[in-house]
């Protein structure tokens, strides 16, 4: 009997191919678009962390050095000190150091491109929004620094940093570099005042061992795989709301009442709704991941575990479908199905992380793992990276528990007798 009911439900879906098409086609389109389009954003791609820096120099550091040397000549310092100072002044030219040590440092080449701009072009550069920051070095900058360092002159020059409001990340990065240069340079100057010889190149260069490794040397995820999982676990929820409305339609058309008159147990009908939703959910997930595997190379390391997670997720969706059916029957309208498909799916999708991590709070992340799509997503991700089945136990348990609780609610709320249709 139940088999016939399931067949009837499946036929209903097949006779409404538009819905079927949209339930499968829409997520596929979105996976394709988002996987390719947002790939770089999600992964914080190279593009987003490249700072374009413009340097505008009003003075000429060679000339300023000469000015300084002349000033030095005319000062009252002893001759030995003068030659020592002129030696180190030549090495400590701030602008040259800034350019060679910081901005054009080969290690930073990936993040920063430096463009030297003529002073007249400042306004145009400001209009060009491709620049992250503009560093403006005023006239006499080098001379003033050298004078304040070696001749104890009070005047300290000022560097101007224009930050592009729209490029927060990269301008922060450049600012970081600039302030650390400021600190280093000032420190060197301070040390130079007391004892020159400490400042040897060796002591300033410390070895750091830093290595990058994958999580337990697992395969990294591609952005297409990320969205394939994110979208699939979200769109599978719509199966539940659709089944809820189909079932309600049957009540409205008095199909349900006729079944009761024909002395069919309502639980058979209820079970058939549950099973059909589970089957459809599993089918949808299967088709989506199948297409992704065929066209985008998103393949699963362990097929058995994948199937198990899919079944658990389908169970959860099936129980939601059953609950929505009960609620629709109680409320005599499709409001609950609609409310679920509009508000709750959106909330679940965001909290569960289908659109990437939108919230930095740990609390929301924990809540997210309590939603069926969130738990499913976490489990799928782990399997993708080749974790064994044992590592997704908690997610599987969560899905099963979720299904049981929702199912109990659905059973309790399901109307026990017919004849109440309006």
């Amino acid at each position: 009997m139940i088999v016939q009911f399931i067949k009837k439900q499946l036929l209903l879906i097949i006779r409404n191919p538009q819905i079927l098409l949209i339930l499968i086609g829409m997520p596929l389109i979105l996976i394709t678009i988002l996987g390719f389009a947002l790939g770089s954003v999600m992964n914080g791609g190279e593009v987003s962390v490249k700072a374009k820096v413009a340097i505008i120099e009003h003075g000429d550091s060679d000339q300023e050095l000469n000015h300084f040397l002349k000033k030095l000549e005319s000062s009252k310092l002893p001759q030995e000190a003068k030659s020592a100072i002129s030696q180190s002044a030549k090495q400590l030219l701030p602008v040259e150091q800034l350019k060679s040590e910081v901005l054009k440092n080969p290690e930073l080449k990936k993040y920063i491109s430096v463009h030297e701009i003529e002073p007249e072009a400042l306004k145009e550069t400001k209009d060009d929004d491709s620049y992250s920051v503009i560093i403006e070095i005023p006239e006499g900058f080098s001379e003033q620094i050298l004078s304040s360092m070696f001749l104890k002159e009070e005047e300290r020059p000022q560097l101007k940093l224009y930050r592009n409001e729209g490029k927060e990340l990269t301008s922060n990065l450049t600012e970081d570099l600039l302030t650390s240069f400021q600190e280093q340079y000032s420190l060197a100057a301070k040390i130079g005042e007391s004892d020159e010889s400490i400042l040897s190149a060796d002591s300033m260069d410390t070895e750091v061992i830093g290595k990058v490794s994958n999580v337990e040397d697992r395969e990294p995820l591609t952005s297409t795989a990320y969205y394939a999982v994110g979208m699939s676990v979200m769109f599978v929820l719509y199966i539940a709301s659709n089944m809820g409305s189909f079932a309600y339609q049957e009540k409205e058309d008095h199909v349900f009442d006729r079944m009761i008159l024909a002395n069919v147990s309502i639980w058979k009908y209820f079970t058939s709704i549950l099973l059909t939703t589970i089957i459809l959910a599993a089918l949808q997930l299967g088709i989506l991941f199948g297409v992704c595997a065929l066209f985008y190379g998103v393949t699963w390391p362990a097929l058995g575990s994948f199937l198990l997670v899919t079944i658990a997720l389908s169970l959860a969706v099936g129980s939601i479908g059953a609950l929505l059916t009960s609620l629709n029957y109680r409320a005599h309208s499709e409001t609950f199905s609609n409310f679920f498909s509009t508000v709750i799916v959106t909330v679940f999708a965001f909290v569960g992380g289908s659109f990437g991590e939108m919230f930095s709070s740990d609390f929301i992340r924990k809540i997210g793992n309590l939603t069926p799509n969130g738990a499913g997503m976490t489990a799928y991700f782990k399997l993708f990276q080749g974790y064994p089945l044992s590592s997704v136990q908690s997610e599987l348990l969560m899905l099963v528990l979720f299904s049981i609780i929702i199912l109990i609610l659905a059973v309790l709320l399901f109307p026990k007798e017919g004849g109440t249709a309006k």
Partner: protein
Amino acid sequence: MKGILFAKMKMFLRKPWLFVIMTAVCVMFAFFTSQGGVNKIPIPYSVAASSDQTDLIVEELSQAEAFHFHEVTQDELNELVSEGKREGGLIIKEGEFNIIISSRTGTTSLLQQVAGKAYGEVGQKEALKEAAASKGIQEQEVESWYSAAETSPVFSIKQTSFKGSDTFVYDPKLQSLFGFSLFFVIYTIAYNVASILYEKREGVWDRMILSPIRKWEMYAGNLIYSFILGYIQLALIFFVFRYLTEVKFYGGFHTVLLLLVPYVFAIVALSMLITGLVKKVQHFNAVIPLVAVSMAMIGGAYWPLEIVESPVLLALSKVVPLTYGMEALKGATINGWGLEQLMLPVSVLVLMGVLMMGIGINFMEKRHI
């Protein structure tokens, strides 16, 4: 037409809860999603063996501008990274660090830089103290050099900001407020327009045709009601944010309220088109969430479209009304556009609206159900 509007209002007053809940959910959504700082990348870290040096390094790291470091246990770190919740994690040991990732991205190398720099600075200070000690200089004096270098640097940096002519300025609060309200209002409007389908099914539509009321009045009554309800919802949400939170509208609040008109009109028309295309209420209910969610993703309601680089997605976004709604609202507030610039999205919205409305009603009239 007045009669239809009156009846609709009465119906609304009997069942206002869905509308109220939708509005509340939208407000909450916009509020919570705007809280997370998007301009700093969150990175979990874990200290393998705590020492003075690692404490200093953690302190140094906390000053990084591009990242926000938060401490977790090593297991949590592995979990966060392997589940794809964070782009990378940092394991801090004495003299070395280890970056854990699940996929190699641009952030990885940047993180490497930042961590390397922190280690470099701490290591340098230690080396300097050592070198100073061998020359008989006290540790305190070395410390005083550092503080002197920090408090009175040889040159100062003066910061000002500039804005390129079409720089993308990101205001997470307004982005999520606009995005979610424009997205959720689609549901409110669509379900109200779809009441035409219910009326048809229940025979009310036929009875109205038999009554002296004219056909255009029947459409106009339904559509105007949907329009008003959608507009009220949006205005309500914006008023909540304007007066109860600290969201700034950059002085464009009134313009924003005005710009909602073409957007709501376009969405009413879109709903009319879908109503005309589907056969049954069920179909409508199945199609609407999928269409709305897809439009929100493509049109930049969930994330700013400006961060999208793909030409395909950008081309697709051109046919979605939500794109122009967002463009107009952001233009009036964040970007401070003038009337001239605002005219483009507004006229596209109006054009789309007229087109979809025409096709929708046409389909509706050609079919008899």
